[in-house]
C-alpha cells in the first residue's frame, strides 16, 4: 500500500509534467485531483466531490466577483481606455531624463487597475509608449525593458485578477487582499522609477529628456482619465473602506463603467456585446481552472503532504524568514517554466498550510505569491511580457530586452526582500481596515 504522502508527491510531479506537455491547465489540475482522490478515498467519493465542487463553484456568490471585474475592465476598454494613463503621465514627466520610461510605469499602474492583468497591460501600454520612446531617441533595450517591468504592475494593482483567484483558492478576504496590495504596488512602482532615474543619471543617452508639455496640455490629459480614475478610486476605495463587499464592488463598477460608456458616447449594443463576449470567454477559461484547482487542493489536503512539510520545517528548526526565502527560490525556479496562474494554482494548496503553520499571514502570502509570480513575467527563459513586447517590435532582439531587464530585476529582488523582511508593507492597510 502506497502512503498518501507518496501519492501526493507522485501526483505533483505528474501534474508538472502534463502541464509542461501543454495539457490545458484546468483539465490537468482537475484530472490529477480526481485521480488522486479516487486512489486515496474512492472513485465514488471522488466523483461526488467533483460534482459538488463544480456546481458550488458556478453558483457561489463570492466567486461572482471575478466575471464582474472582468466585465468592468472590458466595458472600460469599450469606453476607449487604452494608453490614456501613459499619455497623462508622459505630459507630466516627459521633459525629464527617462521621463517617458517613468511615465510608462505610471501608465502601467493606471491601466493595470483597469485590466487586472499583466499581459493586457504590457500589450496595451507598449503599443503606444514604445514608438513614442523610440521617436524621442530612447535606447530600445532600455525602453522595452522598462515597459516589460512596468507591465508586471498589472498583476498586483487592485482590483487584480491574480489576487481574486488567490482569494478564491485560499479562501481569503478579497477586500483585505486588495487593501494589502496598495502599498506594495506603490513601492514597486517607486522602485522601478528609482531604477530608471539611476540608470539615466549614469547614462543620459538611455532616455533623453523630451519637450515640456504646457499646463493646458496637462490639464486636458488629466481630464481624459478623470472619469476612469474616479471609478477605480470609488470601487477600490469603497471596498477597502467597507462600503460594499467585493462582489458588490464589482457590480457597482460595472454600472459605473456603463455610465462612462454612455458619457463618452460609445454606448451601443455592439460595444456591450463585444465586451460581454470577451468577458464570458475569459471567465469560462478561468472557471475551469478554478474548479480544477479546488479539486487539486482537496486532493492535496487529504494526502497529508502539507502536514509533512510543516513538520519538516519545524523539525529542521528553520526560521520563518529562511522558510520564506526557500519558498521564494522554489517559486522563482518553477516560474522559469510555468506561467503565473499555473504556478499559483499548483503551489498555493501546498505552500499555504506551511505558511499558516509558520504563523505567517495568508494575506501577506497572497501578496508575496503574486509579487513572485510577477517576477516570472520578466525573467528568462519564459518572461511572457518580454515576448509580448518583442511581438510588436521585432527589430529589438530578445537578448537586448532581457539584458535591459537586469536592473529592474535587481529592483524586484530588493523589493521582494523588503516585503519578506517587513510584512507590515502589506499588512498595515488591512489592519487599518479591520479597525
Amino acid at each position, binding site marked *: 500500500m502506497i502512503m498518501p504522502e507518496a501519492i501526493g508527491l507522485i501526483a505533483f510531479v505528474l501534474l508538472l509534467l502534463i502541464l*509542461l*506537455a*501543454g*495539457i*490545458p*491547465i*484546468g*483539465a*490537468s489540475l*482537475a*484530472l490529477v485531483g480526481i485521480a488522486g482522490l479516487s486512489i486515496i478515498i474512492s472513485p465514488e467519493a471522488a*466523483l*461526488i*466531490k*467533483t*460534482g*459538488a465542487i463544480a*456546481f458550488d*463553484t*458556478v*453558483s*457561489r456568490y463570492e466567486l*461572482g466577483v471575478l*466575471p*464582474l471585474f*472582468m*466585465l468592468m475592465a*472590458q466595458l472600460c476598454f469599450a469606453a476607449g481606455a487604452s494608453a490614456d494613463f501613459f499619455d497623462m503621465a508622459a505630459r507630466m514627466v516627459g521633459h525629464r531624463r527617462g521621463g517617458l520610461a517613468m511615465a510608462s510605469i505610471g501608465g502601467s499602474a493606471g491601466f493595470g487597475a483597469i*485590466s487586472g*492583468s499583466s*499581459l*493586457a497591460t504590457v*500589450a496595451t501600454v507598449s503599443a503606444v509608449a514604445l514608438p513614442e520612446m523610440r521617436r524621442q531617441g530612447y535606447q530600445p533595450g532600455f525602453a522595452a525593458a522598462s515597459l516589460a517591468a512596468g507591465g508586471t504592475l498589472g498583476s498586483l494593482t487592485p482590483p487584480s*485578477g491574480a489576487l481574486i483567484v488567490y482569494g478564491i483558492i485560499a479562501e481569503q478576504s478579497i477586500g483585505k487582499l486588495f487593501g494589502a496590495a496598495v502599498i506594495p504596488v506603490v513601492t514597486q512602482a517607486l522602485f522601478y522609477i528609482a531604477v530608471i532615474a539611476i540608470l539615466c543619471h549614469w547614462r543620459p543617452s538611455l532616455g533623453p529628456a523630451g519637450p515640456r508639455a504646457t499646463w493646458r496640455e496637462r490639464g486636458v490629459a488629466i481630464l481624459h482619465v478623470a472619469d476612469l480614475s474616479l471609478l477605480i478610486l470609488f470601487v477600490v476605495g469603497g471596498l477597502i473602506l467597507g462600503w*460594499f463587499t467585493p*462582489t*458588490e464592488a464589482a*457590480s*457597482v463598477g460595472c*454600472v459605473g463603467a456603463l455610465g462612462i460608456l454612455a458619457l463618452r458616447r460609445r454606448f451601443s449594443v455592439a460595444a*456591450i456585446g463585444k465586451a*460581454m*463576449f*470577451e*468577458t*464570458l*470567454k*475569459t*471567465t*469560462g*477559461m478561468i472557471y*475551469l*481552472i478554478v474548479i*480544477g484547482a479546488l479539486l487539486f487542493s482537496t486532493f492535496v489536503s487529504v494526502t497529508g503532504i502539507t502536514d509533512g512539510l510543516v513538520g519538516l520545517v519545524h523539525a529542521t528548526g528553520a526560521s520563518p524568514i529562511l522558510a520564506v526565502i526557500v519558498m521564494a527560490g522554489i517559486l522563482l525556479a518553477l516560474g522559469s*517554466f510555468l*506561467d503565473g*496562474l499555473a504556478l499559483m494554482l499548483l503551489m498555493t494548496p501546498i505552500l499555504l498550510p506551511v505558511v499558516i503553520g509558520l504563523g505567517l499571514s495568508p494575506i501577506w502570502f497572497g501578496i508575496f505569491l503574486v509579487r513572485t509570480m510577477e517576477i516570472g513575467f520578466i525573467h528568462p527563459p519564459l518572461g*511572457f511580457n518580454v*515576448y*509580448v513586447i518583442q511581438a510588436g517590435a521585432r527589430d529589438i532582439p530578445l537578448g537586448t530586452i532581457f539584458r535591459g531587464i537586469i536592473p529592474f530585476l535587481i529592483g524586484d529582488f530588493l523589493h521582494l526582500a523588503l516585503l519578506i523582511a517587513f510584512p507590515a508593507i502589506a499588512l498595515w492597510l488591512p489592519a487599518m481596515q479591520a479597525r
Partner: protein
Amino acid sequence: MSGASTGIGDTPPPAKRGWVNAFLLGIGATGMFVAMASDAIAVLGRHVGFTLPGSIEVFQVAAVIALSMAILLASLNDRHAAVDLVVGRASARTARALFLFGRLALMLTFALLCAGSIWVSADLWSTHEMTEILAIPLRPFRLFWIVCSGLAAIHFARQFLKAARQ
C-alpha cells in the same frame, strides 16, 4: 503562446460559429446582467434606505446561467489556457500527439464534471432543493449546468475524433 492567454483583454480568435456564439452570448449576457443588476440595486437600496430581499439568491441563479454559458463559450472558442513551453518547440508529430492528448484530457474533465453533477443532482432530486428566501427551485439550474458541461464534453470528443482521423 496559449499560456499567455490567461489575461484580460487578449485578442480574440476569429469567430467560426457566428449564430451559435450569438445564441450562447445572449443567454450568458442575460445571466450576467441580471446578476450585476440585482447586486447593484441591493447596494443602492442599502445606502438609500430600501432592501431587496433575496438579491444574493437572484445573483446565484443568474450566475449559474452566465458561468455555464461562459464555460461552454470558452470551450467552443478554444480558450482554455495551457503552458506551451514544450509544445511551441516540439516537432509537428509530437505537437499533434500533445494536441490529441489535450483534447482527450478536456473531454474527460468535462465528462467527469458532468457525471459528478448528475450523481449529486440525482441524490438531491427528491428533496426539491430551493433557495431560502425566494424559494427559487434549484433543480432547473443544476440541469442547466449538467447540459452545458455535457455539451463541452461532446465538443471535445468530436474534436478529438476529428483530429485523430486526420
